[in-house]
Structures are given as structure tokens and as C-alpha cells.
């Protein structure tokens, strides 16, 4: 910024004998605006984009939560009525329970697997790049393609999984068709589709662990499990924590898998918060209640994001 100032009108340098008169506040402001005009000009583009596509929709969403709208006449303020509608909906609690279940299962399955895969990949001596690419490949598939592909895997009749089970003499499973296995089935899909990115991040974290630590552990006679527990995990603890928080935030917003694969069924066992929100907005055209629901999710996830920011700030 000082460079820009020096290229503009040269500031008047007060002499030692003549004390400079204090500049008027209005004049100072004008000068500062003039000095920074270029910066403000360039900033405009970003500000307009953020305002149009982020801030305005957020503010509008909050307002909509307290309004009834038909997009023809003026919105009607309805106070907490949209929230009351939501709380009276028996599916509201079901949706939160299912979403938390999905998040919990995703932590158990989807959190451990990418880390384990990263540790194994890190230990590989040959074809490392090939296996990294193989693990990352599903990330490049569009989510809807993944969901449709897995729908066939899960087909209780001639599907891939049940064919495999039958071939080894095991009874077939109902997968998506049963309330007992539907949510776990969705978690497996989501984990498979997204583990590539998490694995790469873990691999990067593993690469930063000094080799001397492992050498020292080996000299002390540590087993593989002990090295993993006392060297690898403590050294990647921060990345693990951040990834966990990011995963919670991402999995709380699960939508594609239940929308494409189960439609929320069977018997509402896979209705998630976003799926219910989607139904309110785009099936029932009740944007007020949908916005109320999104506001609740926003507050909930805001808490997690605050925690995430606090953790990263503490670390830095």
C-alpha cells in the first residue's frame, strides 16, 4: 500500500520549524479513499459476488424463516409459525436422529478406514502412485453416478454383493430394503466415494513425521502396533482432529445418497435433515418452513465451525 501512496500525489513534508496543521477528518478520509481507489475497485468484484451469491441468500434465508411467501404478493411475517410447523412434524426428530446416526456411523466407518488405508499406502515400497490413484479414483466420479452404481451393487436379487454372499454360502442381505441395514449401506457408499481425499490428506500428514522417531522406536523394540499408537497417532493428532470436525460438518449435510438411493425409506429410516428440508422447499413448496429448518442446521453447524476455527487458531 505504501508503494501506491508514493506513486500518487507526493505528501506534503512538514518542515521542522513549521509544525504541520492537523488534517481535517473529512480531508483525511477523502485522501485515504483516493489512495486506495484501485484496491477498492478490484475488491468490488469479490464483494459483489459474495454479496449476491452468499450474503444476500443467507440474510434472505433468515428472513424467510419468519415469513410466509408465495413470490407473488408481499411476504407475510408469521413469527415462529414456521418453526412450530417444523416441531409438530413427526419427521423432524426422525430426520435429526437419522442424520446423527449417519454422522456417527460415518465416524466409525468413514473416519477409521481412510486413516488405515493411508498408513498402509505409506508403508508400500512399490506401485505407491498407482495405489494412490486407485484410492482417489472414486472421488472423480459424479455422486449421482456413484449412487446409481451402488444401487446395483445392493440389489437384493442379482446384485453384486448378494451374488458374492451366495457364492460363499452366506445368506443374502436386504441392504437398502431393510430398516436395519439401510443407513449403514448409505454410509458405505459415502465412505467409498469420499475416502480418496481424506486418504491423501492423511498421507501428507504421515509424510511429515520424522523418520528418526520410528527408528528410535524400533531400536527400543516397539512393535508395529506400538509404533502406530505411540508415534503415528500422536504425530497426526491435529490433522485427525480437524478431519473429524470437517467430516462431522460434511456428513451432517448428507443428501445425495438418501435422495438417489432410498428416497428416505424404508419407513423413514434414511430421511435426513437435508432431505426433509428439500421436501419442504421443492416438493411442498413451503419455503418458509424449509428456511426455518436450514436456519436450525446453520446454527448447529455454526457451533462446530466455531470449534474448528478455535482449534486451528490455537494450533497456529
Amino acid at each position, binding site marked *: 500500500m505504501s508503494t*501506491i501512496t508514493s*506513486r*500518487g500525489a507526493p505528501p506534503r513534508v512538514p518542515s521542522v520549524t513549521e509544525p504541520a496543521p492537523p488534517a481535517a477528518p473529512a480531508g483525511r478520509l477523502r485522501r485515504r479513499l483516493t489512495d486506495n*481507489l*484501485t484496491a*477498492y*475497485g*478490484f475488491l*468490488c*468484484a469479490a464483494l*459483489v459476488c459474495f454479496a*449476491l451469491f452468499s450474503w444476500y441468500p443467507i440474510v434472505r434465508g433468515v428472513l424467510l424463516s419468519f415469513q410466509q411467501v*408465495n*413470490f*407473488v*404478493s408481499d411476504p407475510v411475517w408469521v413469527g415462529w409459525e414456521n418453526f412450530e*410447523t417444523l416441531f*409438530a*412434524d*413427526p*419427521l423432524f426428530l426422525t430426520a435429526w436422529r437419522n442424520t446423527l446416526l449417519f454422522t456417527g456411523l460415518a465416524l466409525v466407518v468413514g473416519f477409521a478406514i481412510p486413516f488405515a488405508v493411508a498408513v498402509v499406502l505409506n508403508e508400500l515400497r512399490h506401485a505407491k502412485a498407482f495405489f494412490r490413484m486407485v484410492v482417489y479414483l472414486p472421488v472423480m466420479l459424479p455422486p449421482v453416478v456413484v449412487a446409481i452404481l451402488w444401487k446395483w451393487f445392493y*440389489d*437384493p*436379487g*442379482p446384485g453384486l454383493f448378494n451374488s458374492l454372499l451366495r457364492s460363499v454360502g452366506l445368506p443374502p442381505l*436386504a441392504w*437398502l*430394503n*431393510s*430398516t436395519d441395514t439401510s443407513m449403514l449401506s448409505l454410509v458405505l457408499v459415502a465412505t467409498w466415494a469420499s475416502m480418496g481425499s481424506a486418504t491423501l490428506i492423511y498421507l501428507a500428514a504421515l509424510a511429515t513425521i520424522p523418520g528418526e522417531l520410528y527408528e528410535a522406536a524400533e531400536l527400543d523394540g516397539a512393535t508395529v502396533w506400538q509404533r502406530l499408537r505411540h508415534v503415528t497417532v500422536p504425530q497426526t493428532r491435529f490433522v485427525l482432529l480437524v478431519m473429524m470436525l470437517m467430516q462431522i460438518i460434511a456428513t451432517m449435510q448428507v443428501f445425495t445418497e438418501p435422495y438417489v438411493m*432410498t*428416497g*428416505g*425409506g*424404508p*419407513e*423413514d429410516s434414511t430421511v435426513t435433515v437435508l432431505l426433509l428440508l428439500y*421436501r419442504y*422447499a*421443492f*416438493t*411442498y*413448496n413451503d*419455503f418458509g418452513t424449509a428456511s426455518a429448518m436450514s436456519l436450525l442446521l446453520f446454527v448447529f453447524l455454526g457451533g462446530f465451525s466455531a470449534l474448528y476455527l478455535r482449534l486451528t487458531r490455537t494450533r497456529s
Partner: protein
Amino acid sequence: MSTTIQRRSLALVLAAGLGLTVTACGSESDDAGADGKVAITVNGQPPKTQPFDRKIFDEDVAKFEEEHPDIDIQPREGFMDPKTFSAKLAGGQLEDVFYVYLTDPANLIARRQAADITDYLADVPHVDQIQPELKEIFTDDDGRVYGLPTANYSMGLLYNRKLFTEAGLDPDQPPATWDEVREAAKKITALGDNTVGFAEYSKNNQGGWHFTAWMYSMGGEVAEKQGAGWASAFNNDTGREVAETLHAMRWEDDTMGQKQLLVIEDVQRMMGAGQLGMYLAAPDNVPTLVNQFNGDYADYGLAPMPGGEGTLLGGEGYMINPKASPEKIRAGLQWIQWKYLNPDRMDANLQRYADQGQPIGLPASPTPDIWVDGEVRDTQESLKEKYATVPVANYQPFVDGLAELDKKIEPPNAQQVYAALDNVMQGVLTNRDTDIGQLLADAESKANQALAQVR
């Protein structure tokens, strides 16, 4: 020019450009056509992937404009998409004349998202010849009218005549009761090779939609008026009978296949591939099976709803943008009447379909069953017979049986009620040990919550 000035100028140009863009986004386009014509946008134009239907539509636009030189029709592709409807309305992009399914008008009227056309109807010919129960769907409690029906369907039993023959069943004597459906399904499933006797939807509210059709077929209701409001009416003996019949077909008879959570496309695919014996459908499914799923007209038969009590009415129509000017409303109604409700064009229209070997003879477009008994209906029936290109006899049981059935419209807040009933369908089709009483009670509670919001 110094670097600073150049940079500042660039920044200001950028800012001004963005400002102009934003202003342009917010401005309303001028709808008035050239030469003082009334320009109206209309949707319902078939996509280019349906070349025949598209050609017919575009020819109609040109012909209409020739006959109405003061109106400029601007056609748009697409039909009713609830996902984009509100956004288009809010953004001023909703067509002046827009397509709706018969499930839509009740909510659109309640939210005032369609224009009141009552005062303009006196100028629209043949409106009095349209079936009153269809017009009722577009009418509010005060008798104000917000749209016009252009086609309707009644649900029936669509069956595969080829599989019926292979299973030793008479394709000319389709099942008339649910017990007969069960027996036929058993024989068809016994053919093996993954053949499914009877399939049913159970996802994306389509399960609830068909559960409603089942209820009507057994003389039941899913919602009924109680005082000033509405309440669900399916947690009773009829509802239990429907659920128990489906449960028995799925688990005792094992005639509904293992894969569940099906939607219409899944079932149509099975039928088109010759792997399905029967499903509940409207006549307009037949051309879809032929054109999109490689079926053959000769393979399909249509019977009235088993149960013999009632059938679910559905269909389509057109409504007018609530922001449309009176001139546009008048022009829009002229288009709807000329294109879809025009007895004077029936002969020439069917001739075009016949020349191209398109299906004529089904109780569906281009000969929709929307007219009351009288001159218009008689004309259509005689022309249908004259130009028939599909084996009309295969659908005769449906046409003959329809008169005996009570035709019922969908419940209010249909989608939410269907969402509740989806669960009943899913419960009986995916869980052998399901508690039907509990399923119905849970669905009742959800449906009542939805019905309590009917305004």
C-alpha cells in the same frame, strides 16, 4: 497515461461493469411483441428428443399465430417441475401459460400462485362441455376458476398379454378382483426367469399415490372433510385390507419380486423388458412403454381397477401466471382452448397422428377423456374409432369398466399425504414382520399434521 491511472480506470470499469450486470439481472424483460402484438410465453413444448410431438407442437404454434395475428406465442420446453416453479415465479421467469398436473392446482390456488380467470371464461367456447369434476380441481371454495383441464386419466390395471398367455391365463379376461390379481400374479411368477407377477411403487411419494389408488378401488378414502378441516381416513378396515393384501402378495405369495423401493421408471423398465405381469397405471403409460422401453402395443392390455369400487383421477391442465396482464390472460386462454380444447380441430389433428403411425385409440392424448356425454364427446369417439392405430380391443375392458367406477380426485396436500403413506407401502413391502396397525397409525399422525395445514 500513468500506470496508476490505468489501474484505477480498469478497476472502475470492472466495478461499473459488475454494476451494470447486476442491474441487468434485476430488470424485467419487455414482454410486448412487435407491432402491438400480445406476446405470451407458453410451456408444454415437447423436447427435441420427441421429434414427432415437437413438430406437431411447433406446427400448432405457427397455425395459431396465422389465425390470431394479434398474438405472438413464444414456446418454451418443459412441463411442471415443482423444484423450479417457485424460483421461476420469484425471478419473473414463469411462463404466462404453464402446465400443471392435477395434483398441483389446489396448492397453487391456496398460495395465490395462479391468475383468477373466472371473468374471462365467458369468451372461451366449449368450457361447459368439460367434465365438471375436472373443472372442480381448478376451482376454489368461492367458485373462482384458476385454470383449465386439458387431459385426464383414470388408474387401471396394465397387464402383459404375452405373459398372461404363457402363464395359461386368458388375456381377454383380465382380473377383476384383488383375489384374481393375486392368483394371476402367482401363475406369472411361476414362469420363472426373474419374472415378477405384480409390481408396486414405494418411493418418492409414488407409494402413497398408489396406496391411495388401492384405497379408492376398495371403496375407501384417504382424507375426508371434518367440519371446516380435513382428516385422514385410511387407518380403518379398508386401509388394513389394502396393507394386508400387499403384504400377502409380497411375503406369502412372493409374487412382487425382491427388489423394492421402486419408482415408476423401474416398473416401466420391467414391463418394457417383458419381466412383469401387471401394475397399476393410467392408459398414457402404454405409449411410454412402447416409445421409451421398447415395448409393443399388441403386448399390453388395460383393465379397470380391480376391486370394482372406485378409481383415482389424474391428469393435466394449464394455468396462467398470476402476474399476467388481462391481455395476456385473454391471449393465453385463446391458446389453451385452440390447442387443447378444440373440437373443430379434432379431425385434422388425428389425421396428422394417423399419417405418422402414432398411437390413436387409447383413452389418452390425443383423445383425452375430458368431455361430458354430448356432441363433443360423440365426435371424438367416432373419430377415435375412425383413425385407431392401436389394438383398441386390448383396452376395451378398461373403457367398459370405467363407467361403473366412482372417480375420485387426489386428497388435499396430496404430496405430504403421499409421503406419509409411502411408509405404509415401504413397511409392508420390505419388512416381513411389520406391524400393519402401527404403520397405519404412524402414517395417520403424519397425514393429519399435513391435512391440518390445508388452507
